[in-house]
């Protein structure tokens, strides 16, 4: 059992998950969050991952993971199959983020979503004054090879939730040192580098 610390945003997500439930981690990567949920929270945790190499590594570590695509494969699952459906740092790479969110909230009683904030001051500076597509620690890609095709700001995401009639149960904003910040929305949208939202159907 690994006791290595996990990424701060993953830890935040893990802290939002009640022990003993069922969770699906969509885009589970190397399975770090899954392993944590299984080992430390007794969660019946499953994963879906696009890369076959990631899937194989997870399964070889005893995790329940399938190869699949957030955009197309969530629709296989029945309603309310999970207590939580988790999407960490993947929403911005989906083809239809709104449809993915809808599926997550159909399959899960709650959805937990983390994403990089495209309105972070570093992003704004780079675009406004640098005149170049932003490259930051949380958005490290060149414009021509980025998987991130649907970037949004924290305020954009809140607006989408309002639009979809989704209730925001919790919202945590992290600055570029991965520390939680407590600010009014306008400032959070400027100083937050990433955000973690817990949502449920209204």
């Amino acid at each position, binding site marked *: 059992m690994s006791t290595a610390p996990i990424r701060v945003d993953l830890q935040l997500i893990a802290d939002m998950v009640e022990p003993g439930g069922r969770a699906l981690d969509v885009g589970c990567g190397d399975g770090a969050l899954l392993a944590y949920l299984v080992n430390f929270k007794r969660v019946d945790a499953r994963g879906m991952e696009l890369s*076959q190499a990631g*899937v*194989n590594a*997870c399964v*070889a570590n*005893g995790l329940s993971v*399938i190869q699949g695509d957030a955009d197309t494969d969530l629709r296989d699952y*029945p309603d309310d199959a999970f207590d939580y459906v988790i999407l960490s740092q993947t929403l911005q790479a989906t083809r239809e983020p709104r449809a993915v969110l809808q599926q997550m909230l159909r399959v899960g009683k709650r959805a937990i979503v983390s994403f990089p904030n495209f309105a972070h001051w570093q992003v704004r500076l780079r675009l406004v004054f640098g005149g170049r597509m932003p490259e930051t620690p949380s958005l490290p890609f060149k414009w021509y090879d980025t998987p991130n095709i649907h970037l949004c700001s924290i305020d954009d995401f809140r607006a989408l939730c309002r639009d979809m009639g989704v209730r925001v149960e919790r919202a945590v904003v992290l600055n570029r040192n991965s520390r939680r910040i407590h600010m009014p929305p306008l400032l959070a949208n400027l100083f937050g580098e990433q955000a973690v939202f817990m949502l449920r159907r209204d």
Partner: protein
Amino acid sequence: MLEDLTEAERKALAQCRHAVLGTDRPLRLDCGVELGPYRVAYQTYGTLNADKSNAVLICHALTGDQFVAEQHPVTRREGWWESLVGPGKVLDPVRYYIVCSNVLGGCMGTTGPLARDPGTNQPWNLRFPVVTIGDMVRAQAALLDHLGIPDLFCVIGGSMGGMQVLQWAASFPKRVFAAVPIACAARHSAQNIAFHEVGRQAIMADPEWKGGDYRLHGTAPERGLAVARMTAHITYLSELALQRKFGRNLQDRNALGFGFDADFQVESYLRHQGSTFVDRFDANSYLYITRAMDYFDLAGQHGGVLANAFKGTATRFCSISFTSDWLFPTRENRAIVHALNAAAANVSFVEVETDKGHDAFLLDEPEMFRTLHGFLQGAGSARGLT
């Protein structure tokens, strides 16, 4: 029931265990016939622990048998899954009680068309009832009852073995803690039925087949069975593997022979595959077992919806496919995974990159071994196995 055995059966039964079942309660087959008594030949490795929680059932493929991890009594070759089963290997007899039985309809000691009809005391031959994957699994379940194994830690198999795994999970969900269907499908495709039909027609077109009564006539449809095997063998390999292994290389000659001898290495190889196969396999048995695979349609058993086969299942699944397998391609295995998702089952799915085709599940595939090791460790700790 030991009279009238073939040479292969005699050697097999001398090297393994067997049980005569169905004397009191015959096996009710899908075709409606009640079969009993019947014999199941099986082999075990390891010991059942005190909790009876470490039993693993291995389901063999079309031409496999119960000799999983030991020298074969007929061919003298090593066991067909020795890469996976044995001390220090993924399925270690120190940890697990491993059982593998010859399928119903088989020809390595379990009752099949070679046996005699207890009603008439005549050889069954083609009068043997057509059996299904479901019948094979019910016979295995009866064997487990006989062995005092309440439930299985794991049931695992590739190809037709994978079909049995799926049938086990659907028919006896409470007796299956973990299920590993490898390189298989929830139903046999039209193309696969077509290949089987070619094989069967080759057997039945052999004048020595005699309507299935060749043993009564002292003949054997060896040519037909060899052709059936040659055809099938092509489907077990990938085009790339064939090309790499043989290309257009000539066999024992420097130039084309302008005749119909085996000029090419690939021809010679297939002829060898065919001719060695007839030493260990029975032609009628080949007809019956291919038919059982053709008839397999798990969704069909559940109102046309595959997910219904797994409704409410608590079994943990691990499905494995191979990129170059065109007999049971990844999409067929993925259809099983989708159905398991629709049933909210606990499922892992790994596609292994290999150019070895369908046969990859029998070969040294480190990625498959890593997957199985990880899955079995995870399932084992959930089961409380130490």
